[in-house]
């Protein structure tokens, strides 16, 4: 009776566990932001059709990678993504339970849930482990198949073993190796066929080598690196997370086996006295089991909570969210999210995203210095770097900025770098379609569009574009494209991009408010106040109701330094700016002996204005000159 109760309770506990797991994945991890991560997180692309499929049949593990790529696309729908991850985890847990039983079993009802915690830790790292997890699942499943023949003659077992490991190696790569180890352990510890067990373990390496060279004609290096989650190995935490479930299951099998060897030996010695003792202690045993169950439930709950609290990569989560918002042009969300990031966190892309959001919310020159700033973040040019491991999302996001501001070729350049490094992500393909369309390269535009039409999520949108293109109506009602066509840079420069020259050229040729604001921001960064003063009339041209706050702050500094008045085209510097400048001047006076202390004071008193940045700029210049 008590066993039924415990069984029921463990089922209920497991159900609650997986429901919690699902909601954790859905709301905390949020698969959608992995999907929108522009290829960060080793996220795969997927296209319909045989051409794409053929890429997966030439290497070990390709088929599972293909399935994983397909399933990963469903992360676009967060609830479906969470469901997929949870279901796979559930199956792995059930197979873990079966694994424990096959190795002799131990008196634990919830130990199998530990697999789920390892999976959770992996996904907390914000790398897409779906392929690895699926491969783990399939190897556990094939181990179950092996158990079906475990009582057959040795020769049949060996034949079956070689068939399933070879098949598994081809379809799931590393799983073939993992399965071989499990079968080997099973033969050694359970069936006591030590030689066969060792043969399995040894041939798991040699047979893979043979398969690689003779049948699959892949490079040995290529093949063996797929046995392990190699691409995470250079970063400790993700590598550990990837290895966690694999190592756990192997150790678990080993532990259960050794435990049972020990228990059986002990049982043989004490078999008679044990029987008598058992009869006498049934009631004690009931309570003991309940208590053990309670401890187990508490332990699993604590481990779950611990994993959720301590292994969750909060920073990566925030950065991915920021990129997602930036891609989706959710500017308010960016400005809201940035509040949760430590002020000290120094990331160019983050600053770039904030500046984009501020511009599109008409606040760039009003409040950009309320946030951490760096001149490099305005139009980052890191795509010149040849380092393929460079943080990739910036390539697509900066490309979008280049595109919107009218430097089409640099947008194209940046996107091609992203395309090479991370692959054919829908966002990249879509942007390249637009760029080629704007440049009048319709053949290339069509090729990108055709590729996009094979994407599971964006296919319909691409087909709609194709229809519009065929009718000749694409771009006609699209204000962004019309705007880009009117503002794009016409002057050709063949040397390294000089931001000032290009921005000046953009505003000379057309009505390009974004280029104008970015140029003014550039002058603020570099404290070139005279150039701001020279462009003051453009604030009228672009219909600014008032001079933006940071511009006022810059001009008042300039007037005080040079002692010259500036013609503000009928505008006035506001009383608030005058007051703040007064405070700034006072701080500079008060702390003339200790500039760093002065900077701290200015930041405290005038934190959201341009003045602390200017103070810092002066200090840096002074140091540089020294």
């Amino acid at each position, binding site marked *: 009776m008590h066993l039924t109760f415990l069984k029921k309770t463990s089922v209920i506990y497991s159900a609650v566990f997986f429901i919690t797991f699902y909601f954790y994945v859905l709301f905390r991890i949020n698969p959608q932001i992995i999907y929108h991560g522009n290829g960060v997180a080793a996220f795969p692309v997927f296209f319909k059709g045989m051409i794409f499929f053929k890429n997966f049949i030439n290497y070990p593990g390709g088929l599972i990678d293909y399935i994983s790529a397909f399933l990963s696309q469903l992360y676009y729908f967060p609830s479906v993504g969470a469901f997929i991850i949870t279901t796979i985890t559930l199956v792995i847990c059930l197979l873990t339970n079966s694994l424990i039983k096959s190795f002799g079993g131990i008196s634990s009802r919830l130990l199998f849930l530990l697999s789920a915690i390892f999976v959770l830790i992996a996904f907390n790292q914000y790398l897409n482990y779906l392929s690895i997890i699926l491969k783990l699942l399939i190897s556990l499943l094939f181990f179950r198949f092996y158990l079906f023949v475990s009582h057959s003659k040795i020769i049949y077992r060996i034949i079956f073993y070689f068939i399933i490991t070879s098949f598994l190696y081809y379809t799931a790569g590393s799983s073939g190796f993992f399965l071989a180890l499990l079968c080997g352990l099973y033969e050694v510890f359970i069936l006591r066929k030590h030689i066969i067990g060792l043969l399995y373990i040894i041939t798991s390496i040699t047979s893979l080598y043979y398969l690689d*060279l003779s049948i699959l004609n892949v490079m040995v290096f290529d093949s063996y690196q797929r046995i392990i989650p190699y691409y995470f190995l250079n970063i400790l935490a993700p590598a550990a997370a990837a290895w966690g479930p694999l190592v756990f299951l192997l150790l678990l099998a080993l532990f259960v086996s050794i435990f049972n060897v020990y228990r059986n030996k002990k049982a043989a010695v004490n078999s008679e006295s044990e029987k008598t003792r058992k009869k006498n202690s049934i009631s004690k045993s009931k309570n003991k089991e309940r208590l053990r169950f309670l401890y187990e439930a508490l332990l699993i709950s604590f481990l779950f909570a611990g994993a959720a609290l301590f292994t969750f990569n909060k920073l990566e989560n925030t950065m991915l969210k920021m990129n997602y918002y930036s891609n989706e042009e959710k500017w308010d969300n960016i400005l809201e999210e940035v509040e949760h990031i430590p002020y000290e966190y120094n990331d160019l892309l983050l600053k770039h995203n904030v500046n984009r959001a501020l511009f599109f919310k008409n606040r760039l020159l009003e409040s950009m210095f309320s946030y951490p700033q760096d001149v490099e973040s305005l139009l980052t040019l890191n795509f010149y770097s040849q380092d*393929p491991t460079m943080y990739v999302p910036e390539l697509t996001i900066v490309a979008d900025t280049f595109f919107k501001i009218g430097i089409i070729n640099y947008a194209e350049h940046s996107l091609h770098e992203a395309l090479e490094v991370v692959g054919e992500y829908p966002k990249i393909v879509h942007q390249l379609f637009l760029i080629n369309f704007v440049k009048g390269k319709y053949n*290339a535009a069509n090729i990108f569009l055709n590729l996009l039409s094979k994407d599971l999520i964006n296919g319909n949108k691409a087909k709609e574009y194709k229809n519009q293109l065929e009718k000749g109506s694409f771009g006609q009602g699209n204000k962004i494209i019309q705007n880009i066509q009117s503002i794009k840079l016409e002057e050709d420069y063949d040397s390294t991009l000089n931001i000032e020259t290009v921005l000046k050229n953009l505003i000379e040729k057309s009505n390009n408010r974004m280029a104008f604001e970015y140029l003014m921001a550039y002058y603020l960064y570099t404290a070139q106040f005279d150039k701001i003063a020279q462009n003051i009339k453009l604030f009228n041209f672009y219909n600014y109701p008032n001079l933006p706050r940071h511009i006022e702050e810059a001009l008042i500094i300039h007037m005080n330094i040079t002692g010259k008045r500036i013609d503000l085209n009928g505008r006035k510097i506001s009383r608030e700016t005058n007051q703040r400048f007064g405070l700034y001047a006072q701080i500079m006076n008060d702390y003339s002996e200790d500039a760093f202390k002065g900077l701290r004071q200015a930041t405290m008193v005038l934190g959201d204005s341009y003045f602390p940045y200017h103070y810092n700029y002066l200090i840096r210049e002074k140091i540089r000159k020294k």
Partner: protein
Amino acid sequence: MMRRKNIVVLIIVSVMVSSAFAVYYLKSSHTIPTGKYAAEKRLPKIRPDYFDTVIPVNIAPLNFLIEEEGEHYYVRIYSSKGEDIYVSAKDGKIKIPMNQWKRLLELNRGNELYFDVYIKRGDGEFIKFDSIINLISDEEIDKYLVYRLIKPLYNRWVDISIHQRNLEDYDESLIFSNKSINGGCVNCHTFLKNSGENALMHIRSAPKPTMYLIRGSSVRSIFSQTPFSSASMAYSSWHPDGRYIAFSVNKVQQFFHTSRDENRDVVDNDSAIGIYDTETNTIMTPRGLSQPDILETYPCWSPDGNYLYYCSSPILWSDRNIVPPENYENVKYSLMRISFNRENGNVGEPESILSSEQTNMSIVHPKISPDGRFLLFCMANYGCFSIYQPSSDLYMMDLKTLEYERLAINSDKSDSYHSWSSNSKWIVFSSKRLGDIFARPFLSYINYDGKACKPILLPQEDPEFYDSFIKTYNVPELINVPINVKKSDFERAIGSPENISGIKQITKASPVTGKDPLWKQFR
């Protein structure tokens, strides 16, 4: 009993349904409308453009897409001999059966090949278009095409691979991928007499400038960095005897334009030509091919081995480190040649074959037909990198008369890198006419007088293959014997590289050693 009955019924139903499908399929695929059809007095719109041209007798089926409104599409393919081929499709994708196609072409060498296209319209009416006519060449094209597949690259290269395509079917196999050398740049591949038995592949950058020397099924890896050059051996050409390989070393600099159609541009800030002796594993640096103020590049041996053709231009800048250098848009290469003594490896004096002053354009990529009659080359407005020059076109020179002409097969986009088949009857070249930024390989038949016939796009099993293929075909080379080196042998070669044994100086300058040896210091 009841259960068994159900199973029998299920089997019968399945057989009937399958038969119905089979009958429908057979009917639809082998029926061409007989009797009434309206004649459309024009050619049907098909893609790729496979009409009015010469096709190789051994080419894979030219599958195509019919771009006409219709409910069903039928094609009859026939010639003067052999069985007609019937193909039909609901979606307009015409996929021709391989074996029937091969039989038909083989039986009809030198004859015309007809494609009759019929369309069933929505109202049930059938339409027949004018026949598409092509000529089946009696001369075969080399069986294999080797090319590099890359995305449009800028500063980074992650996925570069060299493939071998069987032109008689659609099989494509991977020869080498840069993933196995941690992402180095895998570049040019050249062959001795159109055979994969003897080949050279060069790897720029990571881990070190290296070349793979393939002999039969074995491969050697050789570090090509020497005091002559810190760069790798780039453009190369095998001497017909198979002992020497002429190669260029180039100080390649890439830069970018802010508003041109083609963003990318490449200039050689410096370059020179050397000769590698495969027997002694040494390099010769003839003075005439590595002059201090001249850019020498794109070597190409004459088929008799007595001359080395190449391109050269004076260096127009004083600082060879500035990118781009001053006057780079005025660099125009001339076509040159130099005599070669195969006994002692000595070269003569450079002689001009076609000067850039005559053409006012830049000549690059000279390739001589294996029979020695013609020289095919590219000309563009300036510079050495024709694939980035929309003005690049193909020109043919008759080596008897030294007269040349622009080929009629050029387009308004870049038409560049080309190679000859072993029988001198076919060329393959890269053109961006269909993809703007993506180059595709085109095959063209060369007449006895050096005229090129309308080119055909390399056929693919799926006629829509190129529509969404975002890689570019680079350095297409025709070969008649495939490369037969296993990937694991490449891997072994990487693990045991050799160094160049020595340099035979034919220049009088002394070698300069240092951290960054450059040929300009050397000579």
